[in-house]
């Protein structure tokens, strides 16, 4: 460990106040060259806020930042970029209208005689992305690619910008294992080059895999910094939660699978997803596994009518139904918690309360407003049940921390009491404590007879709650695992190019 050397970056007493909330209370953070420093904490602990104060995205209310023995005070992200601090913020913050290459090099495009050289930029982009194992066309607009690809591009951009410090705020949420490995290999390289890297995540295995030290935040305060070589997972979790995480015994009640709820035949859309058959019964959790871009999100969206299928039939309890748009899906008591919560999930300026009742109200119709008392009752119940951390139910939802937004969205759909719940990356950005809660919740819903379809990149999680796992590749269902076949290694095998015997 490089603790003998001088720190690269030192933060002292950083504080940040929001109306109704103290997000950071005199936080200290020290980064040494060549270390990966994990920043841990529950949802809403203040991790992202700390990063934003550090990089000048927010004005801090107190505290000093010292970079290489010099006090700095970045007023904008531009300043911090110039100082050699590269950052990936929590939500993918790239410009969908620009091309991949333009996003990568915005602000420092290769110039040629005073003008941007597009050609040089494309080559450079291609080389850079190859390092991350991404073979996308850098001349395409970014919006043509999935969130996962965008996240990798964002990381690549931040890496390019970081001369001294690289900050990654939940970079691996919704990335699959291969991508994560690639990113870790890049991080190792940077580490060897002497960069200090801040790594925020809720995946503790990843923390232990790559990080040297960890600082844990709770309610805006540092509760401890540990060398990970000397610490155990339990210790860290206890620090984060302030209590022990009860070990849930995996006594999976034998799936009490009920009648067929929904039956899709030859359902698909050209150029988007190959037609597939799918039957989901009550009391069943169907997991969707696959690599990036394998079509999990597409499957979810097409079933919910977010994109309209151009072929195939859908039957609900034997009756033919049409799902041409989400509204119809909602009237059939479907629910979809989308992958991209920022653009497809939250309604940023509406209050948390309104966000929670939105879908229910939409189904009730315009002229039957939910009574105030009922609204409050619902909202409070879900805030409590899902442990959503907020200053008040009236605050705009965009001010919640990422993980809490995710929980609020879950609450929105649970409030509609759906018969068929589709979850796309439901635990994206959710902390360990809540993670366990959500898995438990999924199991409980199943036991209550709800039908669920869950797409996730986290295989352990899928294994934990699925009664059946469908594996997708190249937008095609390639195999289905049931019962005791559902193991991580089987899923990995199915995802990899070894078609299994029981392929659909």
């Amino acid at each position: 460990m490089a603790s003998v050397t001088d720190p690269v970056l030192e933060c002292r007493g950083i504080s940040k106040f929001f109306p109704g909330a103290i997000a950071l209370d005199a936080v200290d953070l020290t980064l040494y060259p060549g270390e990966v420093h994990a920043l841990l904490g529950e949802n809403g602990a203040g991790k992202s806020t700390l990063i934003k104060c550090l990089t000048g995205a927010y004005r801090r209310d107190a505290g000093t930042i010292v970079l290489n023995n010099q006090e700095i005070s970045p007023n904008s992200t531009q300043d911090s970029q110039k100082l050699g601090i590269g950052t990936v913020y929590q939500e993918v913050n790239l410009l969908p209208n620009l091309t991949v290459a333009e996003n990568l090099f915005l602000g420092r495009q290769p110039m040629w005689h005073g003008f941007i050289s597009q050609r040089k930029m494309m080559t450079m982009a291609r080389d850079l992305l190859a390092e991350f194992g991404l073979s996308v066309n850098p001349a395409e607009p970014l919006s043509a690619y999935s969130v996962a690809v965008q996240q990798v591009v964002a990381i690549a951009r931040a890496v390019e910008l970081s001369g001294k410090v690289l900050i990654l705020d939940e970079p691996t949420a919704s990335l699959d294992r291969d991508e994560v490995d690639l990113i870790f290999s890049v991080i190792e390289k940077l580490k060897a080059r002497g960069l200090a890297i801040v790594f925020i995540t809720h995946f503790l295995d990843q923390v232990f895999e790559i990080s040297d030290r960890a600082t844990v935040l709770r309610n805006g305060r540092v509760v401890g910094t540990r060398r990970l070589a000397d610490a155990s997972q339990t210790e860290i979790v206890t620090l984060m939660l302030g209590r022990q995480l009860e070990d849930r015994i995996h006594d999976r009640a034998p799936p009490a699978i009920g009648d067929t709820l929904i039956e899709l035949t030859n359902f698909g859309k050209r150029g988007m997803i190959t037609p597939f058959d799918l039957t989901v019964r009550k009391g069943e959790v169907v997991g969707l596994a696959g690599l990036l871009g394998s079509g999990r999100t597409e499957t979810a969206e097409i079933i919910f009518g977010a994109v309209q299928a151009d072929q195939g039939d859908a039957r609900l309890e034997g009756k033919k139904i049409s799902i041409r748009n989400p509204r119809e899906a909602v009237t059939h008591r479907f629910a979809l918690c989308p992958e991209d919560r920022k653009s497809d999930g939250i309604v940023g300026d509406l209050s948390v309360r309104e966000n929670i009742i939105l879908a229910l109200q939409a189904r009730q119709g315009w002229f039957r407003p939910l009574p105030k008392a009922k609204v409050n009752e619902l909202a409070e119940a879900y805030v409590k049940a899902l442990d959503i951390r907020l200053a008040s139910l009236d605050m705009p939802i965009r001010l919640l921390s990422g993980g809490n937004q995710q929980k609020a969205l879950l609450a929105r759909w649970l409030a509609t009491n759906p018969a068929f719940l589709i979850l796309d990356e439901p635990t994206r950005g959710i902390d360990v404590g809540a993670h366990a809660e959500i898995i438990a919740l999924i199991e409980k819903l199943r036991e209550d007879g709800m039908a669920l379809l869950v797409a996730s990149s986290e295989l352990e999680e899928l294994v934990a709650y699925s009664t059946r796992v469908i594996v997708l590749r190249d937008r095609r269902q390639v195999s289905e695992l049931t019962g005791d076949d559902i193991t991580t290694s089987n899923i990995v095998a199915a995802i990899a190019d070894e078609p299994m015997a029981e392929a659909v």
Partner: protein
Amino acid sequence: MIRSTHLPLLITIATFLLAFTLCASQYPAMLSTRVVANLLTDNAFLGIAAVGMTFVILSGGIDLSVGSVIAFTGVFLAVILRDTSIHPLVAFVLVLAITISFGAAMGAMIHYLEMPPFIVTLAGMFLARGAAYVLSTDSVPITHEFYDTLQSLYWKAPGGGRFRLTGIIMLLTFLAGIIVAHRTRFGQNVYALGGGLSTARLMGVPLARTTIGIYATSGGLAGLAGIIFSLYTSAGYSLATVGVELDAIAAVVIGGTLLTGGTGFVAGTFFGILIMGLIQTFIVFDGTLSSWWTKIVIGGLLFGFILLQKGLTWATTLRRKPATEFAAQS
């Protein structure tokens, strides 16, 4: 391979060519060099203003002040050339300095006071026209011999068309606009702003500089358009060019730029201008429309072009990756 992002531009060009062919087949006289030269000369000031408007719209903003700024420029030039003996070139520099600062001031208000561009530039529109009134309510002729010299610079093509200096200046402005938009950091920052303000901020785009730069550019180009307009009419008139901002916006939009910002091309605006000019020429050639039918037909053709564009875009994107379809709808 054609870059998918260029599609709207190609569609605009195709639309123009198609429309021109249709018009010419009805009125063969429209194929003369006169008509072509007129399209360039008569729309020179509008084109220049529209280049600035393109930048503004690309950044997700809007500039309602251009028409008034053009009128102000004209009146300012006319009054200063009438009342003092300074050379027009000096006056040009002076008026450009004023309009650039005016635009920059609006940009600064938009950025620092976080006010919506629509409203700031609406106030700017009132102010610029008001200032023109205060300078002179009369229309003031400009009789400087330098103006005559500039006006006599034209090339008379066979068939009687006169390709004038003003048309050339418009083409050069477009060329410069295209280069700035795609080959400079400023241009990229404009697109970045249009893609999303807070994202651009997090990515380190210098917001203040870019926003002020954009509106200064628009103000300056409106000033240049004002100079061209004063050359065009040899006069300054405070009631001139009312509503030109709407024409410019329409041209930009017909040219395939999205008003939500972030996507579009300066070159598209050029064809947008030509399409608008074509509509007017066609109406005059027809010559049977009453005042009210003129308005209805202009509106109808505007609608037709937008629809055509939508249709073509729709037809050509059907085959493309639908992964982005949902995002594109919002």
